[in-house]
């Protein structure tokens, strides 16, 4: 119960902090919308209609969730360091990895706004019929995907704690994940060697579940894999963070690396 309260309160606080800058908020809506607009125009140009266009709309709208997390999560601990709050996080009487969950969850939540905005944009500007076969399960798939992407963000945040230019790493992995997780391109169209990599990335399963729920297929297997990979990230992040914090304490390098 205390853990849930911690995550809930910190998530709300982080969400409010992230919503302070109107300029940043505008970017989190506009940047994925630029890509979605281009993609809608490409599919229109290719005379796509019906399920193909719906699938493109779902995939391109989900891109915003990942966009909101990739760069910001990679830079999250550098930001805490600059603000002088990293030490406080490390000293808190809770596992360090757990304290990062609300941080990246708030980023993914902002990505969910952009997902809704992109779907609305597709409907209003491009006349894409957003006929979701199973709206409740679709929303559940979005929630699970947001959570899974937040967990991946947490792993990235912890892994990049010693990398000063972490934002560049986060920015560089934005498009590869869009590509290899099948946001818009079927995994079967990618080279065979990419697929094992796709299968360990939670967004692959999350987007597949959303697409399945939208088109009336069963999303449960994809949702199960999505949660399983997210749990895997949580476990790895916990182990890595313990090692990182121990190393930073013993070498006294927390604020320096």
């Amino acid at each position, binding site marked *: 119960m205390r853990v849930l309260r911690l995550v809930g309160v910190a998530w709300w606080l982080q969400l409010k902090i992230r919503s302070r*800058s109107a*300029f*940043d908020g*505008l*970017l989190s809506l*506009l*940047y994925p*919308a*630029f*890509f979605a*607009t*281009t*993609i809608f*125009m*490409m*599919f229109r*140009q*290719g*005379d*796509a209609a019906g399920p193909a266009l719906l699938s*493109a709309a779902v995939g391109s709208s989900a891109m915003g969730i990942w966009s909101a997390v990739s760069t910001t999560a990679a830079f999250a601990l550098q930001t805490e360091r600059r603000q002088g709050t990293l030490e406080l996080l490390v000293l808190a009487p809770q596992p360090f990895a757990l304290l990062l969950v609300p941080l990246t969850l708030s980023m993914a939540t902002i990505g969910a706004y952009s997902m809704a905005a992109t779907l609305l944009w597709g409907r209003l500007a491009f006349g894409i019929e957003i006929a979701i076969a199973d709206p409740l399960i679709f929303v559940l798939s979005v929630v699970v995907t947001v959570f899974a992407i937040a967990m991946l963000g947490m792993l990235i945040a912890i892994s990049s704690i010693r*990398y*000063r*230019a972490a934002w*560049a*790493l986060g*920015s*560089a992995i*934005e*498009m*590869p994940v*869009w*590509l290899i997780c099948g946001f*818009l*391109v*079927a995994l079967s*169209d*990618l080279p065979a060697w990419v697929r094992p990599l796709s299968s360990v990335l939670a967004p692959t399963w999350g987007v597949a579940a959303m697409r399945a729920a939208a088109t009336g297929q069963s999303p449960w297997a994809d949702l199960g894999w999505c949660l399983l990979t997210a749990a895997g990230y949580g476990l790895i992040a916990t182990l890595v963070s313990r090692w990182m914090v121990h190393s930073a304490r013993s070498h006294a390098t927390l604020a320096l690396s």
Partner: protein
Amino acid sequence: MTNLRIFFVGGLTSYRALFGWLSPWILIPTFLFTPLFQILLFVYIGRTAGVSDDRFFLIGNAVVNAAVPCLFAMGNTIGGERNAGTLPLLIASPASRVPLFLGRALPVILNGFLVAVFALVTGSLLLRVDIPPATWGGIAVAIAACSVSCTGLGLLGAAIALRVRETAVLSNIVLGILIVFAGVNVPIGAMPGWMQGVAEWLPMTHGIEATHDLAAGHRLGEVGGALLTELALGAFYALLGLGLLRWLEWESRAKATLDTA
């Protein structure tokens, strides 16, 4: 003589400072890795959507990546000074603003050119897209024109940075506008009329179109008009940027808002 010194030495010093910040840890993911993945992403989306050929997406996405250093580095000429606490010194200096900022633009133009050429060459090898060797000279000229015009737009962004703190956000928005409107992934002719009207006034549009024509076998002279338009747009935005910089600098002094933007 002083102006020439400010132009060359000042520009180079500023660029080296920028590269102190742009360590290989930033340079490689941002300038080499991301452009290639942008090309691959849109090539695969193009195949899925059943439109155009790989060469179209390769050229559009490789050339538009020249805008990344041109927009972000120019925006950072003001934003970086503010972060380093040296903006008041820069503004207080008696140096003429034209050589001061144009000198900073010169290395950035070269940077943008090299990023786009790397993306185009590596992308064509990865995707096995055949671009005839005889066309590469003309394509290089077209990419250089795009880098110049985008740096002009970047100078406008640098001026706005006197009022806006989030220069990277601003540059991202401008880059997004270029990706949508400049014919990067959708041919200008396939866009609605109002979008074509906007595209006409953007850097990159004419340069990308010229690059497509050159890769298809047109001669440099045949695309000369498009390249001149591209350069004229760059000059227009650069002049606008210098004018805005002058006005905002005056306003910052008058209202004492230089470091509070």
